């Protein structure tokens, strides 16, 4: 009997255990069906960033280079400051091809983590699943990606993308913040993992 009560209690509780990102936010009917992430969408720009990766108390400095090759296709390379490649990935229609990765980093768990980060960062065309208002000045578009969700937080006044929150069905996984936007380029980006001690900070270097 006691077990039954506990079970019923959990079942009643379950509907409120959704994604914390949208909890309590008023939903509205958006006329938009798709949201385009503008920051890595220009095929004519070499997106070169000075990068600092803080992972499990280790700091790696270097350059992160992102290039749109064609629609749904980005090349992502991380090098040391000397120019030696640490990894060289290609994202194509949601699949990741590894052109090169240093032997020490060649582990599925690391590659999958980086895939989620860069897919969230660069995915350009995103179908809007639900739309919310957040505080007074922001809109939030929720987009489904396989078993996960991306939440695009937009400044209502300027329609500037300020943040992406990548979640599972119940938890926030990655928070990407874009600052100091100049000519559709986010010159300062931070990628923070919620569940593991990983933080990536990017500062744009002009290479065009």
């Amino acid at each position, binding site marked *: 009997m006691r077990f039954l009560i506990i079970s019923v209690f959990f079942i009643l509780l379950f509907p409120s255990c959704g994604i914390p990102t949208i909890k309590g936010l008023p939903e509205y009917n958006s006329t938009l069906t798709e949201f385009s992430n503008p920051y890595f969408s220009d095929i004519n720009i070499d997106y070169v960033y000075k990068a600092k990766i803080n992972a499990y108390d280790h700091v790696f400095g270097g*350059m992160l280079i992102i*290039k749109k090759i064609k629609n749904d296709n980005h090349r992502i390379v991380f090098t040391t*400051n000397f120019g030696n490649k640490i990894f060289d990935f290609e994202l194509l229609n949601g699949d990741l091809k590894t052109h090169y990765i240093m032997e020490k980093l060649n582990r599925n768990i690391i590659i999958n983590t980086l895939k989620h980060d860069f897919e969230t960062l660069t995915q350009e065309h995103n179908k809007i699943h639900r739309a919310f208002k957040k505080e007074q000045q922001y809109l939030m578009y929720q987009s489904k990606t396989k078993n996960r969700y991306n939440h695009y937080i937009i400044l209502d006044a300027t329609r500037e993308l300020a943040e992406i929150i990548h979640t599972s069905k119940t938890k926030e996984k990655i928070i990407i913040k874009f600052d100091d936007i100049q000519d559709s380029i986010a010159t300062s980006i931070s990628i923070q993992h919620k569940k593991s001690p990983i933080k990536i900070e990017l500062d744009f270097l002009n290479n065009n």
Partner: protein
Amino acid sequence: MRNSLILLFLFLGCQFSFSQEPLSENEIKTFKQNVIALDSTTKTIVSDFIQYKHLSFLDNDIETIGKLVFKMPDLVKWEYTSPYKYSVIFKDDKLLINDDGDKSNIDIGSNKMFKSLNNIITNSVKGNMFNTNEFAISYFKTKDHFLIKFVPKNESLLKFIALFELTFSKKTYDVVAVKMIEPSQDYTKIVFKNKTRNTMVNDEVFNN
């Protein structure tokens, strides 16, 4: 007909000026003697440099500017000044890193790969890389330069550097450029400018 001949001459002229001719045994001997003679009188080297990172998918090479300081027997400092600040000092089997104010040390004493890289860097700065079993070496000349190619014999080094090329001035026997070519054919090229030898260099330069 006359136009065709002019075109033919122009074509041959271009071919000739860019062609690489292998050095004869005697030329190799003379070349090595001159480089070793220059090296044996070198106590310090100070030089500006421009680093070009070439990635096949980018529109432009990534340019980084910096300064190199070398002091006998094996103190080396690479300092990038633009577009970011980053320096590495090779000292007492250690790498002393300063990433825009964030300082760290890496002990390379036990790391064979780093030791090997350190030797390559030190010797390529001086130009004297011939007394080694680590590379298969071939010698060429162009109109103004000697071009020496080093193919690593070490399998783990080969995975990320397929070939080193050192370019020497025919007049001064000084290294004017270093090129590290990856197995993918992407490369890092460092071109030295305003190089001076045997100027006064204080040991404090190599403190982090």
